[in-house]
């Protein structure tokens, strides 16, 4: 009796439970994907995961949680991990580990962020290409190379194209070198946010909305300071802003070269900065993002950029076609239809509570040299009384020491 009932009960089950994969995937891609997942799961400190040349289609986000692992491809144009049609995220590759190296491969078309390293020390990214192959679109993933809450970070010889937020984004991190990379067609080419001790040099940023950004956002684990931006080529970053509103970078006008927002101790020197149509250099405060409100922002947040030093850059063109009606109107009113903003534009928000002599304390000043002018757009009064007086900016600041990675990366 019992057996009969069992048999009857089991029959529909047998017929019914034949699972099928939803997204059609090439069997060789599927087996590559599960093999790579398995390698990431089985990795031990010291493991090197070699991915041979090839174009691999992946449907699921990868993650690594073991320290001391290297992931290595055969070249940024030879080993391609394509996430086109990805069905599970959230990232392309998520890493929560120390002593991590990734090199010589490409990650393409992730739905979300491409390569996120969340909390880890001694991170090296070398020769990696991140690309959204359909060009700049607001549906592209937000961040390309995305170390956050990391220490001792090197990003070099890499390429990021098409991120709908920042191509190379280092957030809430310490001791950072970003060098010899190319970032194009992102909203922000390179962004250093709430980070301490960063050197950004020998990079090329072009065709982004903004070339290189040094930002401080409220409510985060640390305030950023001490970033040097030098010997970069920052030109023609004039792509219309394609970030969704609300994102910090959505406030960046198209045509921005180097932008400092609310960050402190930023040194910008020896760069070639050209043809960024809003301005080659913008110095601004969080007020200008239009997100500042007392309920949503920590009371101890400092929205003013302090100790900003711009000198020895080679400027060319730019400022001739600023983004947004207000800036356009201002430019035409002040410089005429064929005129241009000067090399440096400041939004005019100053911490007046800490200006005993009408000027910030010496180390908190904005010092600008070797530029064809500075425009204070008078943001606090809705651009009513802009000023081209360069006297407040005639000063020098102590130079920042170079960033020394310790330990030095092995690559």
């Amino acid at each position, binding site marked *: 009796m019992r057996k009969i009932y069992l048999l009857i009960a089991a029959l529909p089950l*047998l017929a019914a*439970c*034949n699972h099928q994969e939803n997204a059609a995937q090439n069997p060789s891609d599927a087996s590559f994907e599960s093999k790579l997942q398995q390698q990431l799961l089985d990795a031990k400190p010291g493991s090197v995961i070699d991915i041979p040349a090839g174009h691999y289609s992946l449907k699921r986000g990868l993650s690594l949680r073991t320290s001391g692992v290297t992931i290595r491809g055969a070249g940024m144009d030879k080993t391609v991990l394509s996430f086109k049609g990805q069905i599970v995220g959230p990232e392309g590759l998520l890493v929560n580990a120390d002593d991590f190296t990734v090199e010589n491969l490409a990650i393409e078309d992730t739905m979300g962020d491409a390569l996120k390293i969340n909390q880890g020390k001694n991170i090296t990214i070398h020769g990696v290409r991140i690309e959204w192959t359909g060009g700049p679109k607001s549906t592209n993933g937000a961040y390309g190379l995305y170390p956050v809450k990391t220490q001792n970070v090197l990003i070099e010889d890499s390429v990021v194209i098409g991120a709908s937020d920042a191509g190379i984004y280092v957030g809430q991190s310490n001791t950072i070198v970003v060098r010899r990379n190319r970032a194009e067609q992102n909203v922000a080419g390179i962004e250093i946010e709430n980070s301490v001790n960063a050197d950004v040099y020998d990079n090329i940023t072009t065709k982004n909305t903004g070339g290189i950004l040094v930002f401080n956002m409220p409510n985060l684990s640390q305030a950023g300071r001490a970033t040097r931006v030098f010997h970069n080529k920052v030109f023609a970053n004039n792509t219309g802003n394609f970030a969704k509103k609300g994102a910090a970078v959505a406030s960046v006008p198209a045509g921005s070269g180097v932008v400092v927002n609310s960050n402190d101790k930023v040194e910008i020197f020896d760069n070639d900065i050209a043809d960024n149509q809003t301005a080659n250099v913008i110095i601004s405060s969080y007020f200008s993002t239009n997100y500042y409100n007392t309920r949503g922002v920590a009371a101890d947040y400092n929205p003013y950029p302090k100790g900003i030093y711009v000198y020895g850059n080679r400027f060319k063109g730019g400022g001739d076609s600023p983004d947004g009606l207000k800036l356009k109107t201002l430019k035409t009113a002040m410089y005429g239809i064929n005129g241009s903003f000067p090399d440096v534009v400041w939004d005019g928000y100053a911490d007046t509570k800490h200006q005993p002599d009408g000027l910030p304390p010496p180390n908190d000043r904005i010092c600008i040299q070797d530029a064809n002018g500075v425009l204070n757009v008078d943001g606090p009064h809705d651009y009513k009384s802009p000023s081209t007086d360069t006297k407040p900016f005639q000063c020098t600041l102590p130079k920042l020491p170079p960033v020394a990675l310790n330990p030095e990366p092995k690559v």
Partner: protein
Amino acid sequence: MQKKMWRRGLLLFALLCLAACHHGMEPVAFHDDGYPAKLSDWHVVEARDGVLQLNEGVVPYELNTPLFTDYAHKLRTIWMPKGVSAKYSPTDTFDFPVGTIISKTFFYPIPKNGARNATDVARTYDTSRDFIAPGQGLNLAEAHLIETRLLIRRKDGWLAIPYVWNAGQTDAMLARTGDVQALTLVSDSGERENFNYVVPDQSQCASCHARDWTTRTIQPIGPKARHLNRDYRYADGDENELAHLIRVGYLAGAPSPADAPRNANWMDTHASLDARARAYLDINCGHCHNPKGAANTTGLTLDIATPEDRHIGICKPPTAAGQGTGDHLFDIVPGHPDDSILPYRLSSTETGTMMPELGRSTMHREGVALIKAWIAAQSGDCMVLH
């Protein structure tokens, strides 16, 4: 008619063997190394005689407000070796002894008005068909098993191991790299929704279970006082889960349930909107959005301890939402759910936009409605400074 008869027969059979069933199972086997290939190697829960049986000493439990997983139903169990017990904490996951095995089986009831097939599963809150009898195993004639996840407390810490049920529903197989299954949710009124049920890979288990991303150690999420402080219908009657765990020797140092914290049941319309929404955010978001979790990079905390101000998102500008803002400026705009990022991301099923990032492929309609109602009832505004 025929169907009814065999159902009744199965029930009768099940009742008959209730007392004896788990005695047919070998004792629970704690493996202190490696990855056993089959779920049945552990002898915690096993598909036998048309029932997903719980072995002796395997105690089922539920949470006041559970994590949403594409409308899946869940059978959660705890087992511990003899002579040891977990240490109570009023706020954190209980401190479980080495040897503990926690299981969570994800399953769906079979749709009511359709023939059983490989992919149709019911979208329903009705759990009346799930168990063969109160406190007993799952009725496999009415349930489609998807996966069973184990959390194993070994000497060097917790380990998460996913198992996926086979086509015959006879056993679940080790699936360290997870799985994707194309299923269709069928509502009681026959409405259909195709989706990919995603079994996380072993590393993704830690995305939620690593509560601290610096130490990276993983922890169970559910077995906390505030989630377990509720009644459960055990075989021998209703009892508070904390009290039951104490009685069977699995929990030590706990106060009486009346003195323990308790989250609201998110569906309990007698509870305040605030208590329901906070319980919902706590279990669905708090494992990442807490001061030490994966999302502590965002400045947004959603666990139960978070003060109801900018920390929980009120007027807070997003930090790393990217395209996930949906063109909205703040996480929560009091009184304006449709201008708030939180419900926008909860409503999305797009990778890169949706929250939680893992563990669902469909929108939780009723959960989103709750969060929207909660935001709609908030007052004040987010006045921007210039």
